[in-house]
């Protein structure tokens, strides 16, 4: 049979032969406005689906994006910093013992249905979040420092004693002990105020589909698993300073499609997840697009944890050998600068980070071999051990590189890929996982959040331990406890750095990298910079669209969404 003379094959080959790059330069330039312009709909995408828009339940990266547009919190972060700034609360006082926080709500804080925010909403939202029988929120435990937490959560008391409403515009929190991380915890979306009457009317499940919040945008349409459409919340306290008319957030768009659609002018920006290795290399060769990329350190530490209770890693010398055997710079080269080699716990944007810490872990093959000899394994350990990873491609490639590095000092890793839930439940059980690709993506930008869950011996349990290395060091625990109630910021950071040094020496983790996020924006997308705390924050951006594109954009949005609810009639805003 002569199968080589294939017409379709010829067609395909012809198409490939005429292999022009379809979009070597951005299809639309900016119009050149110097001050922010109002209007336009920003369009971006993400590689996963949003499961719920209920802030009390939205714990994953993707669900955080819409909830941040819909809900404001009492305090928040500035557009380019990790410092706490006022948001729904215009100011606050902290008592001298550091246990009482009194917040004064903005008089113009309103929900997107027009109703003013009151202290009762804040209290209601906290109690709803913490009621174990109601939501079983994955974030409740963050608020354990509020007085009366245990009694309320276990059902022994009907009210949360630590939250009081002296008057409708004042909220007071009382903590069980002083805690400088409290403001960060309040800035997490779990604590976002929700309107009581809407939640009670819709019920919790429907509220997650038709949320109403105090944020700059309101959800007007949600085509499930496809896109979420937002319009400016006309009642938002800063509505005049929200430039965009709306936002279209496309869901479950795989990276290869995101990047192609960006080049085709179909998305206004792509975040790090949408830029695959090949795309990044492609960008480096196309100056016009390269000028549109932003690089930012991600507050995440990538590491490998070694179980300090299991052989061969119960020997500190083996752990130190591993810490010295990993060629972090080679990894960074392999990822073409998408990651930055790291030798310590705190990423660059976090207080406590030291660029030039002499004790930081670093690649030193000689030292690794010396440590192996000190450990009593000059010829390596013949018996292989399991190296667990999650099943993403990135994780698997990284594990394979590490496997190669470890072989050079005579350690033989067997890679074990597991689904996330299997992986985390195994890592949480003592004497189960010898070594794993691990790491920490922060909940809030503070060194405490990086070190306490992972290394305090309080995190060791019979199951669901957060201390995956089962590392117990009384001196470290003492330092961390002292640091946690230290109210002086300078002394506090110094304590966290001392704690970090203990880890570098004992090496329960080998620190490997922090990611560098690459995002690409269209030339007309202005005022957007990678936010140091939040992924994909677009609330401050504006569009400097050329007129032609402007008209086209508006026409297509109107076709699809009927004036895109430009008049913003958010879901759930109708009164009964």
């Amino acid at each position, binding site marked *: *049979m002569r*199968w080589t003379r294939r017409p379709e094959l010829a067609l395909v080959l012809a198409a490939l032969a005429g292999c022009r790059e379809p979009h070597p330069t951005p299809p639309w330039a900016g119009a050149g406005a110097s001050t922010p312009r109002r209007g336009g709909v920003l369009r971006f995408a993400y590689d996963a689906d949003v499961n719920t828009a209920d802030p009390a339940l939205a714990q994953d990266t993707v669900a955080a994006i819409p909830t941040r547009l819909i809900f404001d919190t009492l305090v928040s972060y500035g557009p380019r910093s990790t410092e706490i700034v006022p948001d729904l609360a215009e100011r606050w006082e902290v008592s001298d013992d550091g246990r009482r926080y009194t917040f004064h709500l903005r008089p113009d804080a309103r929900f997107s249905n027009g109703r003013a925010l009151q202290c009762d909403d804040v209290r209601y939202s906290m109690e709803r979040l913490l009621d174990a029988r109601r939501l079983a929120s994955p974030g409740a435990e963050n608020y354990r420092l509020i007085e009366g937490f245990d009694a309320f959560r276990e059902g022994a008391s009907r009210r949360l004693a630590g939250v009081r409403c002296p008057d409708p515009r004042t909220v007071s929190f009382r903590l069980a002990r002083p805690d400088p991380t409290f403001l960060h915890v309040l800035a997490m979306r779990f604590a976002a105020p929700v309107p009581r009457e809407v939640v009670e009317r819709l019920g919790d499940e429907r509220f997650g589909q038709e949320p109403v919040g105090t944020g700059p945008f309101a959800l007007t349409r949600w085509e499930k698993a496809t896109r979420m459409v937002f319009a400016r919340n006309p009642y938002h306290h800063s509505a005049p300073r929200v430039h965009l008319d709306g936002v279209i957030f496309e869901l479950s768009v795989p*990276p*290869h499609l995101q990047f192609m659609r960006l080049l085709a002018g179909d998305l206004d920006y792509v975040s790090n997840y949408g830029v*695959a*290795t*090949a*795309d990044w*290399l*492609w960008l*480096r060769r196309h100056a016009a697009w390269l000028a549109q990329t932003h690089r930012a350190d991600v507050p995440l530490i990538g590491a490998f944890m070694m179980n300090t209770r299991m052989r061969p890693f119960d020997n500190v010398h083996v752990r130190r050998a591993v810490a010295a055997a990993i060629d972090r710079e*080679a990894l960074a*080269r*392999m990822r*073409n600068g998408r990651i930055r080699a790291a030798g310590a716990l705190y990423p660059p944007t976090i207080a406590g980070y030291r660029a030039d810490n002499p004790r930081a872990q670093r690649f030193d093959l000689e030292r690794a071999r010396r440590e192996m000899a000190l450990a009593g394994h000059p010829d390596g350990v013949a018996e292989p051990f399991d190296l667990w990873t999650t*099943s993403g*491609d990135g994780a*698997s*490639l990284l*594990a*394979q*590189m590490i*496997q*190669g590095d470890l072989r050079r000092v005579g350690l033989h890793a067997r*890679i*074990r*890929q*597991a*689904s996330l839930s*299997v992986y985390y439940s195994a890592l949480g059980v003592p004497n189960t996982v010898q070594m794993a690709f691990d790491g920490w993506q922060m909940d809030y930008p503070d060194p405490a959040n990086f070190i306490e869950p992972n290394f305090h011996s309080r995190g060791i349990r019979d199951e669901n331990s957060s201390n995956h290395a089962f590392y117990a060091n009384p001196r470290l625990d003492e330092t961390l406890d002292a640091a946690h109630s230290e109210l002086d910021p300078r002394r506090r950071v110094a304590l966290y750095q001392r704690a970090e040094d203990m880890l570098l020496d004992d090496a329960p983790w080998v620190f490997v990298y922090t990611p560098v996020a690459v995002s690409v924006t269209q030339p007309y997308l202005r005022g957007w910079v990678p936010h140091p705390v939040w992924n994909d924050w677009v609330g401050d951006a504006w569009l400097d669209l050329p007129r032609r594109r402007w008209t086209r954009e508006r026409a297509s949005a109107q076709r699809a969404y009927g004036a895109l609810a430009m008049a913003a009639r958010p879901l759930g805003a109708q009164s009964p």
Partner: protein
Amino acid sequence: MLGLALILTVSALALLAPWLAPHAPDEILGARIVGVDGLPEGPSRSLPLGADAVGRCLLSRLLFGARISLAVAAGATLVVAVVGVGVGVLAGYFGGVVDAVLMRSVDALMSFPFLLVVMALNRIIAHPRPWVIFAVLGGLAWPSMARQVRARTMQLRAMDFVAAARALGASHARVLGRHILPNLASLVIVIATTVIAEMIIAESVLTYLGVGVAPPTASWGSMLQESEPLTRLAPRLAVAPGLAILLTVFGFNLLGEGLRDALDPKA
């Protein structure tokens, strides 16, 4: 016979992989990870197909990958053949209650969504070794073989020579072994070649979706999956395993077709 030639070539390459491959398939050739342009090093004398995304020899992985892909497919097909023929012959030959029970379970198994269940099973096992994958694939794919074998067995049983053998006092075992099974051989071989082709695809799909062969073991599916982030700039990373899958599957289908024409008295 183009099909046979293709299959023999691929099988020979797979068998001889340890001698033909220039490197060990999992060996990371440190310095070759990235060239100046940030891409894995291209083809050269010591790396005939260049390096992959982690800096391993692509040719070696392709050759060793052939072993895994073919072994999984062949293993699964063996399971299909053994179970399918066993069940089909018993049901077709004995009929009655045996037939009813066996065919009902065949029906039940056939109403499992194949890919979904295989994915879920591999997920449960979490760390599938190649033999687990072929057992799972084979364990779920045999019903259609059983159906066809049963139909043929029923035809055969009704034929004169079987009746004659029974009348002459031959035991069931003897009739099955001497008269039924030999006459099923051609049918089974024809079906098996197409099943192998399907299984090669199934293995690569599973591994491609991340629920198949675990790294660093090379299989064509895992090579395709790992090439994904680089495909646009280094298409050879995807073309090599893709073409290997395509040609092998093509070969088996072609062979199956040829055999059907040669063995089927109807045509």
